[in-house]
């Protein structure tokens, strides 16, 4: 906007309009998109991982079953903030190690030299010459993998519980109709498990929302990063000087998160109602009476 060309001459409402539309503020607003993008991308991956984990735990092949057990129990047994710090570094080093082996086979020096992790320039990930957005996208994907791994284990546990909660009689009916194990699983168990898994999944979604500020710890420029950046006191050298306003920025984030959890609660309540229709549960019976 033209009127924002000289911020020092602005006053009142105009100052606020210009202040809240600076480039940095637009980056701040965009970072809410980053959080929503993370949620939108993680949720399906978590469901796939969780479903595979739960199926692995139910598998009749022992090694697969053990794998499912180890995955769900180890990830759930360790504080996940440790996982969030560990997985991205470990992944990053793993990828670079692999690329180093493939791209520079003639470099014979060991990669771990004392306290240093040295790979050849061509193996750097992303390449030092690549543009800034590549670096950001790479960091974001590492964070995404960490989130998916941790929450996948929780989802696997919930879905496994949901599968087991389907009444045995329902499965037996399927068997009596001559269905194979596979058919019983896909046609009877899976469609019915959701209503049992939903409370756990709702909880997981809430936790996932509340875990998103951890993106900041992983070096992604998320809403916490921008709130700190923008809220910090600005001396008169800046175009828009102001005292330390971080309190207000964080209060805004708090409201954002409260709104997110409140809205999710509403959506999940409707979903539970929908899924309970025709189910042999108390919730399903209650719906039958009112309908």
């Amino acid at each position, binding site marked *: 906007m033209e009127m924002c060309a000289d911020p020092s001459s602005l006053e009142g409402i105009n100052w606020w309009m210009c202040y809240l539309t600076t480039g940095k503020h637009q980056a701040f607003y965009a970072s809410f998109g980053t959080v929503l993008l993370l949620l939108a991308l993680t949720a399906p991956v978590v469901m796939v991982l969780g479903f595979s984990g739960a199926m692995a735990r139910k598998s009749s092949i022992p090694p697969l079953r053990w794998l499912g057990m180890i995955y769900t129990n180890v990830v759930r047994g360790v504080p996940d903030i440790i996982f969030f*710090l560990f997985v991205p570094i470990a992944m990053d080093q793993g990828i670079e190690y692999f690329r180093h082996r493939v791209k520079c086979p003639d470099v014979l020096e060991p990669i771990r030299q004392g306290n240093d992790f040295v790979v050849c320039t061509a193996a750097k990930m992303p390449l030092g010459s690549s543009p800034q957005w590549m670096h950001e996208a790479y960091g974001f994907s590492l964070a995404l993998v960490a989130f998916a791994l941790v929450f996948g284990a929780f989802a696997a546990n919930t879905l496994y519980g949901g599968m087991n909660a389907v009444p045995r009689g329902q499965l037996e009916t399927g068997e009596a109709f001559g269905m194979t194990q596979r058919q019983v699983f896909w046609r009877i168990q899976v469609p019915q498990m959701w209503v049992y898994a939903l409370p756990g999944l709702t909880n997981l979604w809430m936790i996932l*929302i509340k875990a998103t500020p951890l993106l900041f710890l992983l070096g992604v420029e998320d809403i916490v990063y921008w709130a700190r950046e923008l809220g910090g006191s600005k001396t008169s050298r800046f175009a828009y000087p102001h005292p330390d306003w971080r309190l207000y920025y964080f209060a805004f984030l708090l409201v954002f998160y409260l709104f997110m959890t409140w809205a999710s609660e509403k959506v999940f309540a409707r979903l539970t109602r929908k899924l309970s229709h025709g189910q042999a549960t108390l919730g399903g019976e209650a719906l039958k009476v009112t309908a």
Partner: protein
Amino acid sequence: MSCYDTLMDYGLRSIGIGERLLPKTDITLCDQFVLIGSGMIWNIYFAVFAMVLGFGLATLVAVGKASTSPWASVPAKAFIFVFRGSPLFIQFFLAYEIFVLIPKAGIDINLGFAIITAETRWLTKAWLGAVVVLFLNTSAYSGEIFYGALQSVPKGDVEAADAFGMSGFRKFRRIIWPAMLRLAWPSYTNEAIFMFHATTLVFFSGFPAWRQSGDALYYASYFADKTFNPFVSYPIIAVYFVAFTLLIIAVFGWANARLNRHIAPVQKVKFRFKPQFIR
């Protein structure tokens, strides 16, 4: 330097006793074990104080939420909603900013509370500020757990109390409160575990580590940064946490057995480990 020397130098470093300088080169496995273990002192301190203080407030909040008077139930519900509906991470940041502002606004009033370093006040230090945040947070989570248990106190227990002529506070203290605790205890054990794990957030959000004395995760990430090797320090801290988690389960399990000692074996409330660490 032998491992015993390291233990002597660094064993209590996180609370300011012993060697000040952190090892910068030639970091041994022993260094990592000792310093991360030293940082665990902070995690235990935060968890214990927050839980002990939070227990009282949680009971109040639960009773408040169950109350028929809106003067009690609305604030209790709002308190639970705010602290359970937002990330602990943001709560830490916000609380730190508030704590930084308070002494600035009323410097004369708070001067009496100032500790040795004059430039910052006591609430902005992790030892108090973080405990306050964790205390409020765990009160909200435990309050919700206690509220759920309060709703499922057997009707017969309450009727029996009425038949004995008990009422008011005596009925609550002798009948309802023990039954509530008994029913809530398995979930409360999980809450204690989450609270313990949540203490790792303290030095990562707002509250600065003073003289490089932080909690276990602070040292673990220090080592991971210095050695570029996350495969040693993070597993070490994980081992510490798993060990303390088992300890919590043992202590709370003993309490659970005590709370259930008059109950027939089939009706006893069992503990199930349901970890959900992020809050």
